[in-house]
């Protein structure tokens, strides 16, 4: 096989830099695997390791510091047949920590080569997440205060199925990289080398020293048995199955005459867990069955199952311009939380405004017509009140009818227990409604 090194751009690193050797053993590894330039994508980021992609004649993407694994994942998912190799320094490792953990957990078939030389070479030799506390670097005393990270232990803990720590000066480093690249899944090689430009000036270190230090650390030499599992990409594709075509989206058909050909603004005031928004949705669907235009705007707190839940609907024979409720025709008041949040709505009522009020809920004084209902006494659970309130409106035929409501229920709850909901609608026939001004 031929070298994949770029003939027009010979590698240029500081004299004695181990990156030069890393580059050549990576090229050898590609050759051992019989790969062509168009079968490989090298993804790099910032720093001296970021020069790697330019020295190869392969697909290449050079991006932002620490983000190489994210671009690589996008490329690999879009292009599963490609061998994707990420070259990153210990700087990129630190700034891209979240992406490293995600890559280990995900197990997409990518090879990450960390060109670990214990400092930020390009920016002047500052400390990185792998700088020993005993080292003298350009960050003053700061590295003394921190513990360097053992990336191999971190990767194995995060689920990487292939982790190897090695000196680039090992005789078999090309074979070692070839094995990692050939591994089907996420493979990480923590490849140690020397930075004569910045690091070894103040921290004398030889290739032999690297071997000695590595031998004293927890060994990582490839497959991590505990993390062996399916490769993400092929698993993902299996989960998706073959693409389904012609899945046209179909909507609801109009098959009712609207009982009221006028605009109605409806506000449902309740609390989280009371199915306020579902009831609003059902009312909307029922109205659409009669060809009405509808908007639904919800308000709730970010904490679920607690706090107010509000749904505002506009139902109109004309297209709806503004989506806010300005003059409510109906207010359904089921819980204190919702009423408190939208007290202002009671200042906008008119004498014809109907308020469906659950017994025991206090509302501000208004000129509206109050219809008080004791849902509890009649055996409705709290989660049924909103649906029952909509049914009470439908029994009066404004803005929808019971036929529209049951038809909407059957269409939207297909296979999802429409019987239960239909029974709630049925039970409202016995509900006494006390009207007062």
């Amino acid at each position, binding site marked *: 096989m031929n070298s994949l090194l770029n003939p027009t*751009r010979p590698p240029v690193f500081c004299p004695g830099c181990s990156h030069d050797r890393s580059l050549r053993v990576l090229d050898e590894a590609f050759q051992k695997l019989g790969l062509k330039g*168009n079968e490989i994508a090298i993804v790099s980021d910032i720093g001296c390791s970021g020069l790697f992609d330019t020295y190869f004649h392969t697909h290449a993407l050079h991006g932002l510091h620490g983000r190489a694994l994210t671009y690589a994942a*996008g490329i690999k998912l879009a292009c599963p047949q*490609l061998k994707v190799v990420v070259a990153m320094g210990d700087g990129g490792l630190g700034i891209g920590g979240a992406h490293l953990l995600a890559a280990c957990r995900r197990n997409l078939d990518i090879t990450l080569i960390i060109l670990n030389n214990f400092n930020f070479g390009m920016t002047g030799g500052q400390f990185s997440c792998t700088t020993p506390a005993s080292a003298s670097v350009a960050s003053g005393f700061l590295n003394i205060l921190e513990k360097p990270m053992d990336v191999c232990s971190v990767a194995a803990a995060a689920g990487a199925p292939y982790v190897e720590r090695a000196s680039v000066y090992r005789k078999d480093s090309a074979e070692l990289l070839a094995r990692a690249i050939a591994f089907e899944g996420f493979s990480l090689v923590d490849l140690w080398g020397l930075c004569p430009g910045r690091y070894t000036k103040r921290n004398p270190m030889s290739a032999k020293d690297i071997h000695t230090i590595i031998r004293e650390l927890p060994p990582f030499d490839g497959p991590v048995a505990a993390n062996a599992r399916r490769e993400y990409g092929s698993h993902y594709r299996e989960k998706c199955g073959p693409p389904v075509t012609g899945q046209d989206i179909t909507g609801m058909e109009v098959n009712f005459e609207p009982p009221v050909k006028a605009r109605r603004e409806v506000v449902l005031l309740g609390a989280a867990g009371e199915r306020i928004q579902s009831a609003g949705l059902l009312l909307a669907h029922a109205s*659409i069955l009669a060809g009405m235009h509808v908007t639904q*705007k919800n308000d709730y707190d*970010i904490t679920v199952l607690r706090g107010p839940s509000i749904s505002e609907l506009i139902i109109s024979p004309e297209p709806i311009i503004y989506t*806010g409720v300005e003059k409510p025709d109906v207010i359904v008041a089921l819980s204190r939380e919702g009423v408190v949040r939208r007290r202002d709505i009671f200042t906008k009522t008119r004498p014809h405004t109907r308020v469906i009020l659950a017994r025991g809920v206090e509302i501000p004084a208004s000129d509206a017509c109050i219809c008080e209902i004791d849902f509890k006494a009649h055996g409705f659970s709290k989660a049924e009140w909103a649906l029952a309130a909509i049914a009470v409106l439908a029994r009066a035929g404004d803005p929808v009818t019971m036929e529209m409501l049951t038809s909407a229920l059957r269409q939207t709850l297909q296979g999802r227990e429409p019987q239960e909901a239909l029974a709630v609608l049925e039970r409202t026939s016995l509900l006494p409604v006390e009207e007062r001004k």
Partner: protein
Amino acid sequence: MGILFIEGNEAVAMGAIYAGCRFFAAYPITPASSLLSVMLERLPGAGGIVIQGEDEIAAIGYCLGASMAGMKAMTATSGPGISLYSENISFAIAGEIPIVIADVMRQGPSTGSATHGADGDIQFLRWGSSGGLPVIVLAPVDVRDCFTLTVHAFNLAEQFRCPVFLASNKEVGMTRESLDLATLIKPPVVERIRHTSGPFLPFAVKKGEDVPSFLPIGGAIPVRQTSSTHGAEGYITTDPVVIQATVERLQRKIESHAEAFSFFQLEQREGARTLIVAYGVTARAAQAACLALQEKGVPVSLLVLKTLWPVPERVLSEAAAGMERALMVEMNLGQYVHEVRRVLGDKRVDFFGKMSGELITPEEIVREALYE
């Protein structure tokens, strides 16, 4: 066919899939997360890929990788996430990587109010990336726009190889509306121009053109992509002549074509002395306000901008011609009004805005329009 009752976010997803989007990655954030849910429900079955990123930086990073491999890609977020997208937005600009970014804005600043809307990112979308080069920003008013403008967004991203934003808002993205499928406007779908013959240089442009032709990473010919300042061949350059020519081209390729995609809606009324300018959900309150004013016997014209960046300068100038004043209304403390003032020069431009998490009402706009 038939009638749907869907949120703006769902309509964005439908528009994206129609436009050929087959890669979507996002990090969950209210009020954009329903877009992630809908995409996850629909895209994998249609041969696409949906990924939940470990953070927003990753989400957009995945999209850029996939786009460079030839897929149409989209991501969606809100204010805090757009902030984290910043470095990769400038990568998409520099590397000419097509991507659609939906910003479903929420009340801010900072983490703000997750379930309340605002239009507080309008200047940030334009200027929130290093280098300050132009981007395209489209602003949907309703569910119908969410579909159609998303298709336009993909088409523009492909045509100009650049990031295109959808400036949505909780009040558009999470408000459900009835939508008659038979009336949906479906623009024809555009694909990025592929390199077909001759030697391939990833950033070379043909004479008289400003957009390089594309080949995907992973294809037969090795392709280079880089976030660093580069020449036509995709290698770092320090040649000031090449650098200046490149940044000018990146600016020109968007700005010189702006009129071709200046989407807007103009309601001119006989005898109007005031022009209201609005975008997004506020345009709906403004439209209702103009109708209410008409009933009071006060004709007021309305310009609804659906392309915000590049600023549709000619549209603005022509709509304001002959008017005594313009009134800019927006859900923030005054952002786009600076552009309107810049374009309209010495014409009186008033402003009304708020960022309380509530919609601006037609009543408030009527009051402002009547205030002399």
